[in-house]
């Protein structure tokens, strides 16, 4: 392909342009790399602060000694069994929520397409509330049924919306309808619940890290180690999918398998995170758009959105625990942050017709 289309174009002009393109791409990539690195550092810093701050303050040295397995009076239990699992669970679940949310939002080209808006979190909640109120299940069993609830709901929404070809808008509308239906079922169950069960159910529904423990963390951690690398490795295909199905197929992307892979990955992340912490309101929904504002257009948002999600949960949990006289579950804080953001986004989307 040495033939030149425009007669005025010379090889010299082409190499000048190539150099300019390389420069522009380098600038955009650097912004992505630097911002993502800063996010990662802040996330780790907040994890560190979460392990030090509490009723008793422990120095970084004491915390590190606990992490390296030394026995430190007081700190070994408080840090090793309470604060550290709580912070790590916040990190992992926040990351999973953020990445799952931005996957849906990217694929459906709509910031409203977050799993907590289209009923997947609601499905997990219904299963969990049923488990608590109707069957009086144990903690671990509640997590398990929540997992099943999320996956079944996601499957049902996907099947309902893909009757003749896949349409993003239809999936979102059906998802919102399913979410409304499930909410009313949850309200029905709660209205007939015994007082003790009601409290447990409400705590689960608001999303909380109070029951954090290493055992609770293990399933989520294993799943993330399996799913996250696969999704990151295939993020190039997700970027191409943003051009529309026809363009993506013409560029050699296998559209349906790619979509199924990402939906499955996102649902699994979301389901396991929800099973571990309950549906922490609006984290999946907010993380992607915030990451997009921070990074500007460019390469994949999967990783940065995961970091933003982790940061949201970590900070909200710190605030919920220590900023007020009484302690609030993390989901209450993210809910207070998220609801106005939803309104803002609706207003802005309506005005500009823009997407993520």
């Amino acid at each position, binding site marked *: 392909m040495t033939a030149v289309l*425009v007669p005025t174009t010379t090889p010299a002009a082409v190499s000048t*342009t190539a150099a300019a393109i390389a420069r522009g*791409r380098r600038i955009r990539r650097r912004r992505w790399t630097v911002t993502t690195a800063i996010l990662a550092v802040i996330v780790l810093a907040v994890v560190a602060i979460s392990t030090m701050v509490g009723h008793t303050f422990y120095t970084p040295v004491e915390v590190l000694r606990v992490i390296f397995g030394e026995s430190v009076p007081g700190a070994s239990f408080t840090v090793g069994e309470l604060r550290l699992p709580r912070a790590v669970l916040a990190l992992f679940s926040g990351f999973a929520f953020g990445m799952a949310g931005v996957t849906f939002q990217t694929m459906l080209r709509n910031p409203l397409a977050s799993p907590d808006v289209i009923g997947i979190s609601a499905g997990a909640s219904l299963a969990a509330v049923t488990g608590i109120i109707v069957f009086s299940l144990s903690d671990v069993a509640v997590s398990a049924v929540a997992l099943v609830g999320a996956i079944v709901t996601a499957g049902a929404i996907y099947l309902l919306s893909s009757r*003749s070809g896949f349409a993003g808008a239809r999936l979102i509308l059906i998802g919102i309808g399913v979410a409304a239906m499930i909410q009313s079922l949850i309200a029905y169950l709660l209205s007939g619940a015994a007082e003790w069960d009601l409290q447990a159910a409400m705590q689960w529904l608001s999303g909380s890290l109070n029951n954090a423990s290493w055992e609770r963390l293990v399933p989520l951690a294993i799943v993330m180690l399996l799913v996250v690398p696969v999704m990151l490795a295939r993020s190039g295909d997700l970027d191409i999918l943003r051009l*529309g199905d026809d363009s993506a197929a013409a560029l*050699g992307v296998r559209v349906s398998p790619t979509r199924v892979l990402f939906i499955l990955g996102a649902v699994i992340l979301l389901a396991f995170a929800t099973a571990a912490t309950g549906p922490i309101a609006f984290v999946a929904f907010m993380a992607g758009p915030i990451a997009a504002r921070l990074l500007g257009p460019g390469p994949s948002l999967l990783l940065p959105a995961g970091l933003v999600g982790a940061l949201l949960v970590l900070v909200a949990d710190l605030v919920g625990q220590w900023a007020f006289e009484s302690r609030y579950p993390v989901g209450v804080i993210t809910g207070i942050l998220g609801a106005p953001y939803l309104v803002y986004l609706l207003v802005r989307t309506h005005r500009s017709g823009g997407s993520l």
Partner: protein
Amino acid sequence: MNPPLTATLREPDAAPAAPAAVAASRDPAPVPGSVGHRLAAEGLALAYGDRVVVSDLDLQIRTGAITTIVGANGCGKSTLLRAFARLLPPQAGRVVLDGREIHRTPTKQIACEIGLLPQNPIAPEGIAVADLVGRGRHPHQRMLARWSAKDYQVVAESLEATDIADLADRSVDELSGGQRQRVWIAMALAQETGILLLDEPTTFLDVAHQIEVLDLLTDLNRSRGTTIVMVLHDLNLAARYADELVAMKDGQVHACGAPDAVVTEDLVRDVFGMDSRVIPDPVSGSPVVLPMGRHHVRR
């Protein structure tokens, strides 16, 4: 194209004069000197669900030429283009590229040989022109690989060829309709395919930009020998810019061949259900269709 008219105007159909150039299954010789791929539909049937759109269609695309596909709304021309692009699996028959059935060939392999500009491509919000054009390199890149020197070279050439090099770092959102269409064409060029399919590449453009896009595609065809197949709404532009013109009706090829031979008053009546006069274009010499509606016609 006034809907109430078609019923009355279709009546002459009763005794159809066989169009001069019905030669759907002929095998046009490649443009001399072209070495591109050969694309053909054989006994092709296409449907969306139960709705059959194209049935038993044979069409050999002339290698190295510009082919335009015209026809009334709903005649199946866009559907046919989607099948050529491997987007729509056939109900029956096959689409063949160099003897290989494209729906049995891996999509990435086809993407190195056939490019497509769909009717409504979607630009991700805020994406830079160079990055969008660079998406065209996707079929040539390995997973997670960085851009190679060749990638930069080809993207630069594509931007130069479409005359948008100075827009490389601009956001696609900020561009005008004409500029944006150039960006999409540049992306298709970056794909470096011997065959380029375009679904109504001139919609939403004013007349000057329509001509600009069609001239650009002609440049591409002449300088690189790219085989171009496009669906066009404007019959006169289709006749002017085509080496081969395909007129479709009811999911069939009604006529195909050189525009001079194909575009006649009878053909327009058969395909669009409309009376017209066809005269030679004083500018290009190609046939021009002057529609005859109920009003503003000198009898």
